[in-house]
């Protein structure tokens, strides 16, 4: 399933004195089976865009095509409910949304809302729990007796149990310890590779964006400032830093070093290994001269 926006525009509280334009002429495509990272400051319009992806917000101008469904300012379109099943959003700190008595009931809530029988929902809950790397023993526990990391996984399982084609993740690693962060990012990457789903990742971490995504969208003041592969996006790091955005640590370090020696070492390095390789290659080049 593909999502395409065409001149998408959104104004909060339109027609009131508090009117505030959050999105201007957004044109982006999220192809089937892709991994897209959305980057930008707080207030850049990331979250507003994200809420359009499954029709939680209706554009005030332009349109968004989600699969076969077109949503414009005039029409919401039939089948929005189906779309919400196909596009699952994991909001920030999803564990705050857990509410049921047991893990199983909590995960079953989504599928049953979309018409699954109790039996089907239970089956889906089991599968989803396995996907997030938790054991079945937890099914009958209260979600509130689990650790923070486990609670987050249960909340994510609740979204996965609906079998979405597209998984939208709003800062899924915030507040986790470094190991928890790596584990959860690897889990999403595995889902992307093995289940063929698409992932849209909203993150402040440039490391996560450059490591996992095949394309990056940079939002700035309600517009798409830049889009491209990680290589393309970070090819002009100084520009991003001027905007007040971060770049991967390896890129930032390289830039600092190049500034200091007054020479370019290589193209921006997206990982620490690449950076070390590039510095050694530079040393070798200079020595050969």
């Amino acid at each position: 399933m593909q999502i395409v926006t065409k001149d998408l525009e959104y104004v909060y509280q339109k027609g009131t004195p508090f009117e505030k334009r959050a999105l201007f002429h957004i044109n982006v495509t999220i192809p089937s089976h892709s991994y897209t990272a959305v980057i930008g400051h707080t207030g850049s319009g990331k979250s507003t865009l994200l809420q359009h992806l499954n029709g939680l917000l209706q554009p005030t101008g332009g349109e968004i095509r989600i699969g076969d469904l077109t949503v414009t300012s005039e029409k919401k379109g039939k089948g929005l409910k189906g779309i919400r099943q196909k596009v699952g959003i994991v909001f920030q700190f999803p564990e705050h949304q857990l509410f049921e008595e047991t893990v199983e009931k909590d995960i079953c809530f989504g599928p049953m809302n979309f018409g699954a029988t109790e039996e089907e929902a239970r089956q889906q809950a089991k599968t989803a729990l396995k996907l997030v790397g938790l054991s079945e023993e937890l099914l009958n526990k209260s979600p509130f007796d689990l650790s923070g990391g486990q609670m987050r996984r249960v909340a994510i399982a609740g979204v996965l149990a609906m079998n979405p084609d597209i998984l939208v993740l709003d800062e899924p690693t915030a507040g986790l310890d470094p190991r928890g962060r790596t584990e959860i990012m690897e889990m999403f990457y595995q889902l992307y590779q093995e289940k063929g789903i698409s992932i849209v990742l909203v993150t402040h971490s440039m490391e996560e964006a450059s490591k996992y995504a095949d394309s990056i969208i940079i939002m700035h003041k309600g517009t798409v400032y830049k889009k491209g592969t990680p290589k393309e996006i970070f090819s002009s790091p100084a520009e991003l830093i001027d905007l007040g955005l971060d770049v991967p640590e390896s890129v930032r370090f390289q830039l600092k070093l190049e500034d200091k020696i007054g020479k370019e070492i290589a193209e921006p390095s997206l990982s620490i290994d690449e950076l070390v390789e590039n510095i050694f290659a530079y040393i070798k080049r200079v020595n050969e001269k």
Partner: protein
Amino acid sequence: MFLAKSVRLAFVFRGEMKSMAKEIVRFQDVTFKYDENASYALNGVNFSVYEGEWLAIVGHNGSGKSTIAKLMNGLIFPDSGSIYVNGKEISEETVWDVRDLVGMVFQNPDNQFVGTTVQDDVAFGLENHGIPREEMVKRVHDSLAKVKMDQFLNQEPHHLSGGQKQRVAIASVLALRPAIIILDEATSMLDPRGRSEVLGTVRELKNLNNLTIISITHDLEEAVKADRLIVMNRGTVYAEGTPADIFLMDEKLVELGLDIPFTQKLIKKFKENGYHIPDEILHEDKLVDYLCKLLQKI
């Protein structure tokens, strides 16, 4: 073997600190369980905090970091062992005096805003302490000025960014003139800009008022700038020392569910490739300087 060395280093360091600074918090054989049937949240924990230092407590989720914070201002009491703040043991009787000394800033900016405006929020704690109105107005203004939020006196909380909300939370704590501020993952829900705003503010305040800062964090880039580090693992103090000591632990930190800061990772890669980098290089700027000299020599 390394552990023994690090403990010894920490010991030497502690000896030095003692002659320089006053001990302001001491945990002595502290044990705590949230539930009788649960495992120990803290098990035989001993450490000291010295006046005017920035101490970072790091550790995996569930290692006992936040339990330490809650014990330190008497939100919970130890099952056994003692905790001393400014020489006074925390008990039901002393807990209110201790809370005057220890201010806490929590993780979620939305959970700690109690007032309807910025100035009401700061005034809330002062009212609870029965501070006279004149003094209260003065303290509200002073502390908001210190966190650079005095332009926002009558703003409602939902108009503020996460970083601004956390700065108001710090002002609320500051207005009570504490000697110690505990940051319990206070920047983990903020974006990078909000994070540096908050940490910059705390650093300035610490230097101006000789505050003691205890920062519970996952952010190793922040921990590297602390004066001293405590690494928690499964309810015990695993290691204690300066950032330089602790980050020598390298892969061991990863095993403990933590990470290694970027500069240390980079230094390690250079060493693996046969380049010697002196041990005293710990911060990024120093490494840039060093590499710069190296690259200019060739």
